[in-house]
């Protein structure tokens, strides 16, 4: 009997890849939560006697130019980066989601006005605008969150608005209107559940993007205070050691940016696939 192969159509969910991504993220999150609780080492401890040591069993990621343990500082840096990325992505999604929802539902003048505001924000180079926003405050995690949120809420607004406009024209929404549903009920029962997967995907994908922004701003010296461990600060510090051949002080923080980015992207893809009811039921079989 000929084997039946599935051709065409959208890609099926890939649970193995998702499991790997979940495991990676779980390990990273566990590390940033547990390590600061159990270790007695001070991530800011300067030990000039151990400066510039390459990776070894005592210091798996080596030490930086003032003898601080790169592994310990990377874990602290990742904690800051993940937290800043998560909060910035959530703020962007909430603000953008509300704007997109109002624009899509209200339509008319309100829609045009809100979308011109979105266009105005999008017309600005977002990294430069982010630098401007963060420069208004003293270097802090809050300033970085504000910078990323102010420059990125427009993505969520556009996604939500376009989804609302598509859904509004669907016959099942007409059927709900004919069935006596109020506007609020239609939003609650039909629009929000159906646009949630797209908004969730945008939010999750925003996390690595926000991490990159945090590291970029810290790298430029505008993010977190220089003495605090953040992945951007570490790469910035490490670039001075690169010329002396100390590759480890930049490489490992760099890898720790890449790892959650790839894991979150894979997980986001899986979440989107699972959100499709047809695929979900096929997976359950």
């Amino acid at each position: 009997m000929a084997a039946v192969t599935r051709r065409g159509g959208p890609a099926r969910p890939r649970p193995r890849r998702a499991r790997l991504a979940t495991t990676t993220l779980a390990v990273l999150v566990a590390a940033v939560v547990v390590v600061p609780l159990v270790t007695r080492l001070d991530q800011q401890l300067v030990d000039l006697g151990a400066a510039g040591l390459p990776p070894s069993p005592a210091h798996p990621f080596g030490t930086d130019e003032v003898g601080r343990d790169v592994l310990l500082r990377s874990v602290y840096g990742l904690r800051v980066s993940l937290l800043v990325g998560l909060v910035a992505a959530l703020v962007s999604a909430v603000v953008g989601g509300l704007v997109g929802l109002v624009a899509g539902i209200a339509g008319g003048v309100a829609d045009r006005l809100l979308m011109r505001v979105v266009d105005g924000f999008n017309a600005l180079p977002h990294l430069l605008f982010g630098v401007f926003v963060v420069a208004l405050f003293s270097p802090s995690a809050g300033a970085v969150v504000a910078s990323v949120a102010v420059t990125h809420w427009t993505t969520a607004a556009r996604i939500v608005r376009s989804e609302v406009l598509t859904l509004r024209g669907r016959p099942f929404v007409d059927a709900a209107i004919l069935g006596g549903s109020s506007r609020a009920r239609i939003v609650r029962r039909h629009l929000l559940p159906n646009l949630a997967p797209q908004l969730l995907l945008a939010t999750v994908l925003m996390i690595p993007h926000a991490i990159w922004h945090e590291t970029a701003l810290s790298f430029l010296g505008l993010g977190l205070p220089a003495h605090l461990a953040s992945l951007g600060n570490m790469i910035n510090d490490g670039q001075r050691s690169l010329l002396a051949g100390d590759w480890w002080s930049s490489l490992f923080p760099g890898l720790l940016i890449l790892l959650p980015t790839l894991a979150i992207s894979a997980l986001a893809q899986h979440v989107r696939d699972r959100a499709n009811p047809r695929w979900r039921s096929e997976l359950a079989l």
Partner: protein
Amino acid sequence: MLEAVDVTLSYGRRTVLDRVSVSVRPGEVLGLAGPSGCGKSTLARVLALLLRPSGGAVTLDGRPVSRWRHRAPHRTSIGLVFQQPRLAVDPRFTLFDVIAEPLRATRRPLERAHRLAAELGLTPELFTRRPHEVSDGQLQRACVARALALEPRYLICDEMTTMLDASTQAHLVARIEDYRASTGAGVLAISHDTELLDRWSTGTVHTLNQPEESPRT
């Protein structure tokens, strides 16, 4: 009486309905035929108060309609069965949610949903299934049950039986006829199938013609 008087509607420069008049009386079945693209579904949406016409008027029981879509008065007086059941149900809903949603929205008891499901041949084991897990026929039965849930005084069936097998067609038409007989509701039956309309309609079958192309400027 549900009536459209000289209704005109355009999408951009394209006129879809050009001074169309049609009236559905309580207790009668009005058949409406016409070629594809002549505006039958658009007329159905206008009569269901989902689309505001650019000209003419729609009256419901003698009163001209002045509010449309969400704010239409007597919103639940008109039921509409859509042509494509797959597009007419929320993909996240179960079959029972589809039927019960109008009752929940208007805070009415759900017993009617069970009764309608039984009348339309939907067994309880289908209640928890989602739209992609049932056939077109089963889905359209649920859509008819949903349209009848609030006991509308007028029911518009927009090519309701297209793509369905003969027995399902006959079953759905019979259930709507039962409903009409018991409530005195008016029915507008829109279809390509003139044979079906000839049998179902209580009067002459109206034909909607393609509007003439408006001259481009």
